[in-house]
């Protein structure tokens, strides 16, 4: 079995089959697929070349399987979409045909070709041929590999205890897995705990959330770590090592939540849960339904910590639950999967000066509204005007605050605020039917189940909907009433409306501290700042990092129902991994060639994972496979060619460079793009149909740290007009910090080019994230000018000076 999988044996003939996919009209629309297939058949080792409508369809895959058997193919190349989408599909096809999956190669002629050169069919076709030539050249050098199987720890970590995190934790725990739920604040519950009622059903929010919260608190499979933060994440899919810092609460488990301490605590500071509308003490419980139901001391304002003494709380504490020498504690967890449910922040409308938030007492936000209308809130559920604590006669809601505008907040729709306002309006009508309510909107988005119904109810209840946001709010100095001035865009008239209170319907935005989680887990963000999913439609809760999943508003603005749905989905995805109990890791680790190794230790020094040990006596380096993530930085660093990166060998990459520069090299850009960010960014440019010059030939490596100076030199010595090295942004590297090596190497090359009297501008370095398709496109446009500016003499000079002298002699 194994032998057949690892075929062909190296002494066998190389027999390549090429399949060019039309992808309906997606590729065939601008690339002549028949021509490309025809051309492919002329390439060395290609014994068969076909084009078909959908290679990924069942019949397409069957064809490949049949051909492998009938024509004895031992390499398969598919020219179609991005390998980030269908490489797994075709690899499986190959395996089913008895071919090792590492003998499969893909040419990306859709995202990187047909979609970005929609209006230049000839050039697109020529480029597609180049891409196929590169793929064929590489595939001839590919070797079968054996993947390591690693066990998956059957424990999960959920970061964030909002409704999404709670649901995910409960689902996994009910399935039977051990779950660690890490929550930064002192209680779980998240934003939902602050909301009064929830649309569209108008259920009391805390009433439906509290039972779930206490389930979490009681569940034998859930270990709840509140007031805690994840500080370190190591390891890989199935085998994460996580460090969690438990901040001290100064109150032990003995606390009975009687609240006697609160009465005596002298410190009064703003209450975050009540959005600062009222105060709390330094010893407090975030809200009555908190889980864990335990008081804690706020380090920031307690006067009894450190050198000071106060201890009034300790004096009255019956169970003697207060300990002033509580210390932060670091816990180490071993988990197989991680679910990120870190939630949202709300938009801060202070920047919208014309609406006077914080300047006019009677302008409040929708979140403050939730606390004012809540019976447990600071006013006992009386919706009062802050200026005089009376119930207003007229209330206006202004929609899209911080949403749907590039300049005034964020460009995206926040998804929940329209329905939230309709809910709020109905709540007012329910308590005080005489209050007149205006809603100023751009569009009302009532797109969920039961939403339109609620909207209709609001209209029937007499809520007045006016299209067109106020341009300005003016406050009446004496009465503190507010004048709204704007244009009704339906009626085409100017309105000036006087109200007692304005509610700004604020949008949702990514949390300020989400960057930290992003770095820890090596996630990506979309341009709106929320975490990016592995595929927006087909893998909506997976992340590009294996074993890490997303749930709730961390992934994008959404309501409670969607957050919960997504949480259950994420739990299922994580559950699948853990149920299998093992996972194969790609065979991308380096192979040390002992005969060439000098034991210099350069590789060990650049390895971000400390996965290389050097035996000083035997003068030999060794790789710890389990720790290695396969970035290839070591391979790029070794000056003795003693490291062979599996599946991304030097020879394969040279073959790609050579194939790309075979014709018209002086008009081409060779771009080395890392798999996670820049290659994905180029894919994104394709998906968004951003058009850029067809001169670029992309070579994919797992990390930009794999790009050896030799590769760049080879590209120049082959006469390429320009070279681009692109990777993840500096602190977002998928391999901790390997891209710092990229930076170092490119800087070294720049110096060398300068020394050799070459135009160093022709080598560009760019940090392009998976969301920055536009940046990739504009980079290529910018470099096109460099290509056009590169004279023949300059290129010849480069070829001459960049070619290693040894080669010249032998040549």
């Amino acid at each position, binding site marked *: 079995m194994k032998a057949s999988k690892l075929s062909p044996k190296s002494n066998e003939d190389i027999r390549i089959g090429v399949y060019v996919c039309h992808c309906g009209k997606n590729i065939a629309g601008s690339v002549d697929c028949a021509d490309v297939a025809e051309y492919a058949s002329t390439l060395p080792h290609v014994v068969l070349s076909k084009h078909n409508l959908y290679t990924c369809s069942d019949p397409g895959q069957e064809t490949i399987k049949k051909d492998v058997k009938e024509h004895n193919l031992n390499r398969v190349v598919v020219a179609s979409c991005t390998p980030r989408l269908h490489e797994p599909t075709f690899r499986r096809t190959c395996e089913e045909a008895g071919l090792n999956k590492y003998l499969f190669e893909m040419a990306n002629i859709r995202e990187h070709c047909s979609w970005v050169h929609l209006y230049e069919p000839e050039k697109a076709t020529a480029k597609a041929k180049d891409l196929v030539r590169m793929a064929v050249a590489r595939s001839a050098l590919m070797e079968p590999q054996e993947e390591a199987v690693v066990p998956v720890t059957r424990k999960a970590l959920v970061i964030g205890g909002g409704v999404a995190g709670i649901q995910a934790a409960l689902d996994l725990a009910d399935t039977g897995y051990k779950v660690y739920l890490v929550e930064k604040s002192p209680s779980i519950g998240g934003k939902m705990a602050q909301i009064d009622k929830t649309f569209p059903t108008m259920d009391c929010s805390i009433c439906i959330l509290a039972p779930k919260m206490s389930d979490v608190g009681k569940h034998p499979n859930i270990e709840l770590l509140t007031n805690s933060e994840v500080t370190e994440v190591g390891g890989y899919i199935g085998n994460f090592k996580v460090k969690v810092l438990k901040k001290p609460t100064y109150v032990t488990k003995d606390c009975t939540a009687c609240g006697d301490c609160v009465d005596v605590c002298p410190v009064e500071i703003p*209450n975050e849960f009540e959005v600062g509308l009222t105060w709390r003490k330094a010893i407090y419980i975030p809200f009555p339904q908190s889980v864990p139901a335990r008081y804690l001391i706020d380090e920031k304002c307690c*006067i009894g910590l450190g050198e000071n003494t106060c201890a*009034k709380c300790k004096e009255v504490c019956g169970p003697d639950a207060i300990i002033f020498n509580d210390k932060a504690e670091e816990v180490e967890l071993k988990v197989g999967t991680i679910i990120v449910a870190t939630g949202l922040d709300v938009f801060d409308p202070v920047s919208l000066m014309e609406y006077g938030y914080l300047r006019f007492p009677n302008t409040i936000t929708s979140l403050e509204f939730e606390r004012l209308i809540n019976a447990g809130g600071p006013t006992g559920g009386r919706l009062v005007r802050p200026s005089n604590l009376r119930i207003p006669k007229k209330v206006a809601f202004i929609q899209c605050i911080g949403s749907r505008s590039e300049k005034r907040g964020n460009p995206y729709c926040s998804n929940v605020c329209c329905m939230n306002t309709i809910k709020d309006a109905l709540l007012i009508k329910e308590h005080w039917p005489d209050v007149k309510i205006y809603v100023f909107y751009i569009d009302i988005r009532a797109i969920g189940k039961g939403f339109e119904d609620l909207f209709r109810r609001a209209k029937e209840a007499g809520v007045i909907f006016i299209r067109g946001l106020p341009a300005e709010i003016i406050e009446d100095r004496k009465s503190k009433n507010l004048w709204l001035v704007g244009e009704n865009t339906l009626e085409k008239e100017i309105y000036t409306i006087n109200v007692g209170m304005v509610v700004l319907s604020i949008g949702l935005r990514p949390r300020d501290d989400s960057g930290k989680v992003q770095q820890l887990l090596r996630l990506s963000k979309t341009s709106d700042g929320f975490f990016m999913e592995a595929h927006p439609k087909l893998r909506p809760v997976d992340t590009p990092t294996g074993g890490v999943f997303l749930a709730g508003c961390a992934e994008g603005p959404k309501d409670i129902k969607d957050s919960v749905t997504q949480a259950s989905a994420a739990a299922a995805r994580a559950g699948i991994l853990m149920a299998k109990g093992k996972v194969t890791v790609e065979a991308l680790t380096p192979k040390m060639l002992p005969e060439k190794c000098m034991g210099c230790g350069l590789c060990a020094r650049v390895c971000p994972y400390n996965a290389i040990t050097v035996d000083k006596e035997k003068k030999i380096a060794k790789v710890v496979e389990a720790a290695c993530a396969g970035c290839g930085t070591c391979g790029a660093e070794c000056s003795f060619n003693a490291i062979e990166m599996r599946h991304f060998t030097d020879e394969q990459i040279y073959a790609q460079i050579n194939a790309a520069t075979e014709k018209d090299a002086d008009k081409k850009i060779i771009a080395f793009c890392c798999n996670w960010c820049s290659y994905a960014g180029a894919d994104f440019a394709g998906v968004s149909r951003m058009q850029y010059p067809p001169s670029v030939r992309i070579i994919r490596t797992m990390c930009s740290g794999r790009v050896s100076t030799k590769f760049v030199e080879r590209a120049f010595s082959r006469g390429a007009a320009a070279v681009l090295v692109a990777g993840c942004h500096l602190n977002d590297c998928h391999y901790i910090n390997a891209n710092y090596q990229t930076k170092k190497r490119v800087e070294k090359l720049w110096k060398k080019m300068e020394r050799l009297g070459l135009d160093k501008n022709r080598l560009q370095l760019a940090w392009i994230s998976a969301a920055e398709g536009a940046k990739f496109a504009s980079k290529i446009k910018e470099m096109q000018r460099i290509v056009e500016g590169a004279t023949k003499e300059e290129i010849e000079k480069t070829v001459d000076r960049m070619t290693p002298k040894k080669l010249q002699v032998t040549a």
Partner: protein
Amino acid sequence: MVNNLRGNPIKYENSQEIRIEREFLTRKYLLRLNKNLCNGCGLCSKICPEEAIKEEPPLVVNGHLEKKPTIDFDIDSCILCGECAVLCPLNALDMEVDGKEISTFVKNEAFPVLLKEINITKEKCDPECDAKCQEECPTEAIRVTKKSEKGQDRITNVQITESLCFYCKRCELACDHDAIQVRKPFRGSIELNTDLCPEGCMACAEICPTHTIQIENDKPQVFSEFCIFCSACQKVCPNQAIDVSRDWIFHTDVTAAAWLTALKKLTSVKTVAKELRIKSGQRRTSTVRGRERQLHLKSEQPNSDQAEAFLKILNKYKK
């Protein structure tokens, strides 16, 4: 700008004062520093539990105080507890909660009120007195009203504004008729080593709010009976020639260790221990004790349970 009612403290400053306001829907806090009264002694900064008060150093040029030391608030750390307002010896700081002059800590019984008093027995006043008290008063706390009667001024009323009084005893000692009694909140000592004085320097005299230090024959001289132990002089002295120490603070009874922290910072561990000892009634044969009792503690019934609790807390802390 109106206050924002969301509990964000806001600082306003002009040449006369610094105000920190914090408002919730239904409660208002205000801490006010009167810059004219403040002499930058920095006692507030010493005891602030959040270390939210920054001291700006004085500027002494050629023996003259060009700029008095000042204080400023770090609004991010200030929790508006009002300890500073309780302890300010010059009444330069006020704290109000909902318009009532009280500190949060006093309201929540975490801090005592200082026992300071000025009493006038008007019956003892001689109508023909030349109002030395008013003359001596370093502020305008005493207003003597006179009426001309048959070509002669006669005193009709003596009015005292306590919020302006420093409790320095100048009036008491000036009064020939024993009509005024002042009770200083702090007790301590002031020592000046004139040997260390730079030639012609008079910075200490310039900062002293009660004219305890006066320049005579080009040298500062201390009249310690007027000293209120604010220690501003010590702070401005360029040569560390002055040593002011407080050894006792008179205050209302309170069950709060926060007070002990402040007391320790303002006086010494010894004073704290003494206060605890007195409270616990473990009085030994000590002359000091006798005087204290005479002076102030006559009415205070020591509560030994309380004191034991205090001691326990303090000891726990030491560990």
